[in-house]
């Protein structure tokens, strides 16, 4: 994307005001998307974003500038701006020599979405619309969306690192509205992987559309969710966001360093029930949060965060790891070249246990079964977090009974982790997610087996 000699010169300029570390992150992103709503393909969109972000670190200060101009002069101007932003008293000549690194990809895409005729992408949308509407007359509206991105990234820094990678992601979602005498309800299903158009060989779109429609129809018969505390069983695959919020964010080293995490100073201590092992793993081929290298050029890793209930480590980016004199963990990510990297999750999941999923439900006299979670939010400093239930049922006398209307559940991360009292043997990854932090969104994956939390607060309206 950019000549090595130009990169070396630009890094030299970036260090001219006394910087200790400089980095060029360049990106060329092409995307295509198509949306169907109300029975019509509304439009096909093609997009391209290309540019570079340059950062310079002096002591505890980071200077950052970005440009859409990848010419030598454009890059030098951005490097000068970043260096000025991070200025220190020092100065001098800096020679940077880059060595091209090898990026080990665990997966090569089969079908580049760019090679697929646009008409083929549009056909998927109309097919999903037809299948969802076919589920029943109660389905009164359907929207569907298709998206693919191909992102070429380059990272070069003053430690001599030079790596490039190509990342392809493909996504599809169906949303339905069902109407009945209780009003309207919605159902949504989405799939997304770090793969090409072979996504549609991995999944059956007909089935996906029918499931979304069925979820909306099921909820027409839903009763208001209860209020107060009770046991909650989370379904396999559908509830990874629980761990993303309950402990994931709190284990990000940047928040820990600022004292903004309930998990600060807890490494080596018990933070969860025995048997609970939480992993963040960027190397999981094909998963939505998969990366070969992070956005700072570090290889992705499988990092065990909590092992058998004991907190083992936080997640790190280059800046925090450098301060602590340790290796980064491959968790430095950013939304685009216009953003500074920070500590982010990749694919975060809870390992399977040994319990039979059916017996987890049958041994619960009264509770809530959450088959499918929506998004969530956490206050890492207090540990309080919420997550939404988009498909949930009552458990009465050990059996799943009536569906429940939507709502949030609320809990405190460290408390909830200690209240996990059953872990199923049926691990599955969940749907693709976008994790937001400081206004930046990055693709993440999550997964869980069926599990039970002995007590959580359900945010419904029923007594």
């Amino acid at each position, binding site marked *: 994307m950019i000549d090595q000699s130009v990169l070396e010169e630009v890094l030299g300029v970036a260090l001219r005001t006394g910087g200790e570390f400089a980095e060029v992150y360049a990106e060329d992103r092409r995307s295509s998307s198509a949306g169907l709503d109300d029975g019509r*393909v509304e439009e*096909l969109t093609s997009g391209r974003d290309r540019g570079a972000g340059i950062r310079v670190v002096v002591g505890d200060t980071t200077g950052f500038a970005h440009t*859409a101009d990848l010419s030598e002069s454009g890059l030098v101007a951005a490097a000068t701006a970043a260096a000025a932003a991070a200025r220190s008293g020092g100065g001098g000549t800096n020679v940077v020599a880059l060595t091209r690194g090898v990026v080990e990809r665990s997966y090569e895409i089969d079908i580049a979405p760019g090679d697929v005729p646009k008409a083929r992408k549009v056909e998927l949308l109309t097919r999903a619309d037809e299948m969802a509407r076919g589920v029943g007359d109660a389905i009164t509206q359907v929207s569907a969306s298709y998206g693919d991105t191909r992102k070429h990234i380059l990272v070069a820094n003053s430690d001599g690192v030079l790596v490039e990678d190509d990342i392809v992601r493909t996504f599809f979602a169906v949303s339905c509205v069902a109407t009945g005498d209780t009003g309207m309800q919605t159902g949504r299903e989405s799939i997304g992987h770090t793969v090409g158009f072979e996504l549609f060989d991995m999944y059956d779109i007909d089935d996906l559309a029918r499931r979304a429609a069925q979820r909306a129809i099921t909820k027409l018969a839903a009763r208001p*969710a209860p209020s107060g505390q009770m046991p909650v069983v989370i379904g396999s695959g559908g509830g990874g966001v629980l761990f993303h919020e309950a402990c994931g964010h709190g284990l990000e080293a940047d928040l820990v360093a600022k004292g903004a995490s309930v998990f600060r100073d807890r490494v080596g201590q018990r933070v969860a029930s025995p048997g609970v092992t939480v992993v963040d793993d960027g190397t999981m081929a094909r998963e939505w949060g998969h990366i070969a290298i992070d956005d700072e050029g570090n290889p992705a890793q499988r990092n065990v965060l909590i092992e058998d209930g004991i907190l083992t480590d936080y997640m790190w980016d280059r800046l925090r790891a450098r301060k602590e004199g340790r290796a980064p963990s491959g968790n430095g990510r950013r939304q685009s070249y216009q953003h500074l990297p920070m500590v982010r999750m990749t694919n975060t999941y809870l390992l399977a246990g040994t319990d039979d999923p059916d017996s987890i439900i049958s041994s619960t006299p009264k509770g809530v079964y959450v088959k499918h979670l929506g998004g969530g939010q956490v206050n890492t400093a207090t540990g309080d977090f*919420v997550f939404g239930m988009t498909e949930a049922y009552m458990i009465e006398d050990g059996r799943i009974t009536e569906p429940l209307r939507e709502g949030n559940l609320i809990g405190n991360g460290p408390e909830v982790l200690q209240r996990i009292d059953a872990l199923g043997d049926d691990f599955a990854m969940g749907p693709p997610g976008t994790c937001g932090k400081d206004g930046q969104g990055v693709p993440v994956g999550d997964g869980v087996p069926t599990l039970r939390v002995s007590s959580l607060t359900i945010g419904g*309206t029923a007594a």
Partner: protein
Amino acid sequence: MTDDLLAIADRVVAMAAPGEQVEAVVVRGTETEIRVHSGDVESLSSAQSQGVGVRVVRDGRQGFAYVGSLDADAIAQTLAEARDNVAFATFDEFAGLAEPDGVAPPVLDLHRDACATFAPDDKVALALELERAVFAADGRITGLESAEYADSLSEAAIATTAGVRSAGRETSCWLATYVMAAEGDDTQTGFGFSVGREPSELDPSTAARDAADRATRMLGATQPASGRFTVVLDPWVTAQLLAVLGHTLDGDSVQKGRSFLADRVGEHVASALLTLVDDPTDARAFTATDVDGEGLAARRNELIVDGVLRGFVHNAHSARRAGTASTGNAVRGFRSTPSVGCLALSLVGGTSDPAAMIAAVDDGVLVQDVAGLHSGVNPVSGDFSTGAEGLRIRNGALAEPVREFTIASTLQRMLRDVVAVGGDHTYLPMNATGVSLAVADVTVSGR
């Protein structure tokens, strides 16, 4: 200086083929963000971004493409892509660009040179002043997750073959901080901010005091018992509720059967105390604008008056389909086609004093913040459930702090259950203005 963007838009429009409608949106932004920590600059980002979005409509079909660049060759390719995408859309008799409607855009003073020329050292000084003020506000403040100064200068131009031609620029700046207070083992958090069009409008001490107050008054908070209460929503919370409610008032959702307010125009849908307007012509609103995303004049639209639903907001497409005129509510960036959305919602006419609103509640909760609006509120069904924190209200007075609970109802019921509307209009960095709002019969779920 925005003229060069309009010239680019004009050049794209001039490339329209016979029988083709073309719209070009060209934007450029300069942004600075300075974060400070421990009396030093943690990061300073300064950046310029730009891009062009091209929409082509031909024979009732629409195609779109964008590029994050103002390079002439890249823009020509983008037009070619948009043109190529046209063939794949379904025929839509209402497809088409906005037609000029003769409504003059309001003259708003949204651009200030004082913001554009504010020196970097002064920006750093303001952020450091904010951090100092936070620690000076209360001895129990133990740390900062962030303290920042940010500003933006954004310029946009739009031109179309239908004859729309408009360009404008605006500045904004803000201070924001997120702080931690501790007492014993207990840590609580609070945020504060100050927004303006130019730095002289920013007030670091108010932002710091708000953040410190929000954090320290939560110290010792416990989970409340469940029950049904009257809740008084802080202006910040009300504004977020309005933003969600806005989705039920956009003409696109209404026509596509995604709004519970469809077919209710002329009916009482809310308490008679409620009058809701969307008014981007109020220059005090953070999202004030003179034109919408299709280049039509922004205007004040009355949506609910004394509890009666008056109408919905529209862009050109949803208006054409509804057999009415655009209300100037096209919302978009350069990376997307225009959708329909409320621009600057506000509850007007409320006169209640927030202190009097609390004094009128025997047994209730003041909600100072909510979490999970995106996960527990469904604007289609109306189901409403969010995480919350705040203070109990007992016998008309603020009492102990409470956290780790949810508040739940439905949007339909909450509109009717409003019992008092505050006159304390608070301009916030979002598309709605906050006021204190008292809502009866809300379920608090806790212990």
